[in-house]
């Protein structure tokens, strides 16, 4: 492989561009400069750390280490889903619902991909398992966060319409059917869009990375298609599960709308 290794100077040049942008941000009083700098620093530190962890994992292949690694990834993703909600569910539900839905969808799909499609020995070879699961979690997280956000926002906005149906003797789930559908759709739109635009508007990041690192384009393309399908399935199933759990939690056993279960 004809891979060109990047030096510290190379990365510094790119970082300098971000600094110029930050300077412009101050001048235009955009109020994002702080966030921008912190995010750039986080990217650098987080990715470097991950790089070292991956190196460790690749060097000593063991199911135990893998379990720890993927659990940490899942918990971070779960926390991220909750952090993106304007009105997250109170208590453990806020964290739990997103995490459980992500676990069910991403772990199942990734396991299937590793054992049936990639079929390496052992199936949990970190070089495949970690990036696959990472991409699955990253996208599913977005879908679930969008779906739950839409669900809770719409339930708050349309409280009167929901309760009007409850008053007439409809069940909670009947009263929220339209909102629930809309929330599921919302969660799936980004991945549908990125499948439709892939290659025409944007070259997907993973494929770009593989090509830059020296893989033959057609091999990179095949992997990209595989990933797209896996991500779509994972995001779709995860969003459906999360929205179903979320909409159940909005009502109690007496079919009352319980917006008090959301944080203000």
């Amino acid at each position, binding site marked *: 492989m004809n891979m060109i290794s990047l030096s510290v100077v190379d990365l510094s040049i790119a970082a300098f561009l971000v600094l110029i942008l930050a300077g412009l941000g101050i001048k235009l009083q955009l109020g994002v400069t702080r966030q921008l700098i912190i995010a750039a620093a986080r990217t650098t530190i987080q990715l470097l750390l991950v790089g070292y962890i991956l190196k460790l994992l690749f060097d000593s292949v063991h199911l135990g280490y893998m379990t720890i690694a993927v659990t940490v990834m899942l918990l971070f993703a779960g926390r991220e889903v909750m952090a993106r909600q304007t009105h997250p569910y109170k208590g453990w539900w806020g964290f739990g619902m997103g995490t459980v839905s992500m676990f069910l969808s991403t772990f199942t799909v990734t396991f299937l991909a590793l054992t049936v499609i990639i079929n390496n020995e052992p199936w949990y070879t970190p070089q495949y398992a970690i990036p696959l699961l990472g991409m699955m979690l990253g996208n599913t997280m977005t879908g679930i966060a969008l779906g739950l956000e839409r669900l809770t926002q719409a339930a708050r906005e*349309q409280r009167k*319409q929901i309760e*009007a149906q409850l*008053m007439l*003797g409809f069940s909670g789930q009947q009263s929220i059917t339209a909102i629930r559908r809309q929330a599921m759709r919302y969660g799936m739109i980004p991945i549908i869009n990125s499948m439709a635009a892939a290659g025409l508007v944007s070259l997907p990041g993973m494929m770009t990375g593989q090509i830059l690192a020296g893989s033959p384009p057609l091999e990179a393309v095949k992997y990209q298609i595989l990933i797209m399908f896996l991500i779509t399935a994972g995001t779709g199933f995860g969003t459906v599960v999360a929205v179903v759990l979320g909409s159940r939690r909005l009502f109690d056993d*007496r*079919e009352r709308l319980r917006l008090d279960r959301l944080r203000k």
Partner: protein
Amino acid sequence: MKSLRVENVESEWLPKSSIDVKAGECIVVSGPSGVGKSLLLRAIADLDVHKGSLSIDDESFDAMPATAWRKKVGLLTAESAWWAEEVSDHIKAVETERLIELGFDKSALDWSVDRLSTGEKQRLAILRLLANQPEFLLLDEPTANLDPASVIKVEKVLLDYCRNKPAGLIWVSHDVEQAKRIADKHYHFDKNGLSEVIK
């Protein structure tokens, strides 16, 4: 005769309240605003978490699903909400006679909800509620947003339903004249709960 018994119902913002209403009877409830009249009706419809007991004859509210309870005990709010495009999407069975009595003709069912005035919405919400054939009606200032001619129409439709079904009515109203026209009994509601006003 069926009767709805409300005993020591209480919630966070609602003072402890008890009231009995029999089928065929219209009870008017009035009292200062902010004391919780709407909350009382919501609690009776089991829409809010509450303490105390609710029963029809000897059947407790929690012995049946909440959906069944709310079909028997129908709540009409002061301002109606609509969730679909057309009027007919909201009403499962229309009695044409009642539609005309409320001042509409059949074409009203094809109307888009967006073009309804507040008063039209309120009158159609009554039609929507009565289609469920509830045994008791909880009416939260049902005529507050209506013009005088519609007030009379609505009073007649609701009282006819009350006598003919027969159904029990708990009717929240601020209007003293209205109370005189429609009330079989009159209750006053304040921070100490409900008490009957003896004429």
